[in-house]
């Protein structure tokens, strides 16, 4: 099978628990605590995936973590992973340099319903590093812009210094056929943009409540209020998709670490239609 990169896809892995060697081609600092690794398979094979899926990245001798793929399937070059250094594995990945190796298992999980949204308006709501898993979907939407109605991209960050993919957001704002709004919770310096919660932007509308698909990714509390705001605007639960984050370990639904009600986030998610998890979403213990 040919991948969008024009290389032969690697044969399906017989053992999803065995990491595949990938080499770091580039390491890019995004924010004070966030970086992007550009990876390429070291075995010469390809790598096919869908927007919203994730890989398990193994820092040899330290451990393995789930990381969403932040490049688009049709984006030339390497596979991108944008990582916030918050623990020992992510910090170890952050200490690696171009040329170093990592182990990769994947891709795993469900994807954003980009094709299913053809003909609909799109509301894309991202908070913090939640923009990374949505980036491939946004790039796919832009690449086939004529297949969608209005496209509204709403992004919130803690401060202006925490805005992820700032240049790309500015580029998206430059499109005449995209409505892109960025807001921050706190201002720490010169900032001429919005200050306030990102979920408040939903009230501004710009989309057809009956014919919109909403994609949400960010902190769970942000998604909770984002969903409420969408409901208040008349968007039905079955038209809302959320990307859930849980403590994924095996990534194939065996270990149960990421169990969410009767679902496993690694296998049945991370992207869920909201109507499927709506009742679980209200249970704090989950």
């Amino acid at each position, binding site marked *: 099978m040919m991948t969008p990169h024009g290389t032969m896809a690697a044969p399906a892995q017989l053992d999803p628990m065995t990491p595949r060697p990938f080499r770091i081609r580039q390491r890019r600092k995004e924010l004070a605590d966030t970086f992007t690794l550009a990876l390429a398979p070291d075995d010469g094979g390809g790598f096919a995936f869908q927007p919203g899926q994730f890989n398990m990245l193994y820092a040899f001798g330290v*451990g393995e*973590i789930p990381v969403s793929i932040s490049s688009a399937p049709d984006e030339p070059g390497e596979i991108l992973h944008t990582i*916030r250094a*918050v*623990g*020992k*594995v*992510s910090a170890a990945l952050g200490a690696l340099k171009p040329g170093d190796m990592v182990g990769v298992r994947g891709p795993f999980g469900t994807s954003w319903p980009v094709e299913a949204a053809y003909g609909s308006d799109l509301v894309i709501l991202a*908070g*913090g*590093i939640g923009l990374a898993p949505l980036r491939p979907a946004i790039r796919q939407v832009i690449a086939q812009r004529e297949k969608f109605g209005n496209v509204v991209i709403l992004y*919130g*960050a*803690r401060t202006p210094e*925490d805005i992820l993919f700032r240049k790309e957001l500015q580029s998206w704002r430059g499109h005449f056929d995209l409505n892109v709004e960025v*807001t921050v*919770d*706190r*201002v720490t310096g010169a*900032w*001429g*943009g*919005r*200050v*306030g*919660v990102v*979920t*408040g932007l939903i*009230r*501004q509308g710009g989309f057809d409540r009956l014919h919109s698909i909403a994609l949400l990714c*960010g*902190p*769970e*509390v*942000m998604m909770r*209020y984002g969903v409420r705001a969408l409901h208040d605007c008349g968007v039905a639960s079955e038209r809302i998709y959320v990307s859930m*984050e*849980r*403590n994924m370990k095996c990534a194939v639904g065996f270990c149960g670490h990421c169990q969410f009600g009767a679902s496993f986030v690694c296998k049945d998610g991370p992207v869920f239609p909201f109507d499927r998890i709506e009742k679980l979403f209200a249970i704090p213990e989950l």
Partner: protein
Amino acid sequence: MTEQDDLRAQIKEHPLLHDLSDAHIAELATCAVAERFQPGEFLIRDRTPADKFFLIRHGTLSIELETPPKGRLVLQTVHEGDGLGWSWLVPPHRWAFDARAMTLVRTVTFDANALLARFEANHELGYQLLRRLLGMMAHRLTAARLQMLDLYGPPPAAKV
């Protein structure tokens, strides 16, 4: 078109009050003027008498607090389609923040004392306006509560 016609049209176009009756809009227009503020100009100063209510027709302004020794803190921004100010409704009728134009701002500005007098004389008008202001206040309160959370910090499960 007279100035009053113009004000009535501007009030009717504004999302906060667009569904008021024509009679109520006409009554409100008698308490209003159209104003324009240049970038950097203050609409509201902290601790001064709260005697105005603004409908924002165009532009962006920041709600700010002086927080010595840190300096000025922007709490939130307010935009076209929003309303601004409710301190005139409750004692001690003084503003609790600064509001400054970030861009050119156009408003319909109401004389709050004239509004209160109208409300006393016409309770239905008062009820209709307060109902809408309460909705605006509820949204701001929810937003302020969310803003207090560190929404974008990593969840404990993500510390790997």
